[in-house]
């Protein structure tokens, strides 16, 4: 929000022919204010987001992730022979040799 406001001013100055502006953007460190939390307070205060919608989105995403993990766990590992596929369009002699020596 601070960036938007300052850059908007700078752009207005430039558009009015008053030259360039140097914007010094100081980023918060890990112990600084959380920009995501601040953004959430802003969009909630404007009625664009709510506690309820936030909870539902989090549940939905958590479900997607755990379903993807379950699916991956239920999938058997690829056959060892597939290791040598797709290095080249056609399997080169040295890959055939290594594949056969791998047993």
């Amino acid at each position, binding site marked *: 929000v601070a960036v938007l406001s300052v850059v908007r001013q700078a752009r207005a100055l430039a558009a009015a022919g008053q030259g360039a502006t140097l914007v010094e953007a100081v980023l918060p460190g890990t112990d600084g204010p959380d920009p995501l939390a601040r953004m959430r307070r802003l969009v909630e205060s404007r009625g664009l987001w709510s506690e309820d919608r936030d909870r539902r989105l989090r549940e939905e995403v958590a479900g997607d992730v755990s379903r993807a993990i379950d699916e991956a766990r239920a999938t058997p590992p690829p056959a060892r022979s597939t290791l040598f*596929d797709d290095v080249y*369009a056609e399997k080169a*002699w040295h890959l055939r040799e290594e594949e056969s020596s791998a047993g």
Partner: protein
Amino acid sequence: MTQMSTQMNMVQAINDALRLEMRRDPRVIVLGEDVGKVGGVFRVTQGLWDEFGDERVVDTPLSEGGIVGTAIGMALYGLVPVPEIQFADFIYPAYDQIVSELAKLRWRSGGEYPAKLVLRTPVGGGIRGGLYHSQSPESLFIHVSGLKVVCPSNPRDAKGLLLASIRDPDPVLFFEPKRIYRAAKGEVPEGDFTVPLGKAAVVREGEHVTVLAWGAMLYEAIAAADEAGKQGIRCEIVDLRTLWPVDIDTIVASAKKTGRVVVVHEAPKTCGFGAELVALVNEHAFERLEAPPARVCGFDTPFPFTLELEYLPLAQRILPAIVQTARY
């Protein structure tokens, strides 16, 4: 019907191949530093910008990582880019793009998103180019799974191998030995023809010693073999042409025939491609060997300026290796 041929040097032959393929296939795009209006520092791309315009012959900023990264993006969207790195010595800023992206895209996408391009770059010494215009980095790319590496030694092969490289489904590094760009001349078939990748050429048959060489050093190997011939040693000279995947059948057949192998290359000896070739000969033909395979290579130093003729494995250094191997 007999195919007509024209006398050309390597530069003209490579230019002819690029022009032919750009006319035949609208997906082929040339990009690199000074490849457009200037026609390339060695004039390899001369005239292409005039014929095909600046959407197909693109002058790029001096940014090797950008050139190769852009070419990979083009390839993923179905174009067939032929980027040029002005000297192989400048390829290292693009090494990450080549190794981490280009070489692995087919494998890591399970065959769905291959990125096919041909990266052309001049290699090798002998033009008083000093340490940043003379290197031969082939083994750095042969070691990376998923790349093909090609190095022609004459105009006919340069044209035929480049056309085969552009039509091959895999990424190809096309190393052009700059020392013989204009010195190597020969008859080149007009129009379309290819020299298949992965096939070496036995340029001279002999029964005493096999000499494996490629690019500019092939001619040094031939000169050394001529001298050895005066001592009754008949060499079989194999021009590898495609360095990787190398023509193992031709190498092994020749090694078994002669029982004696000498490998010649400009790149430094340690972990050079010669090390791999010797290992392959040992693995596939050990019981037929009569002498330990020998390597005649560049030294394990940076490429020198004033001492480049001492550094290069020229005929006078190859000859004693041939003689010692023959008499072992």
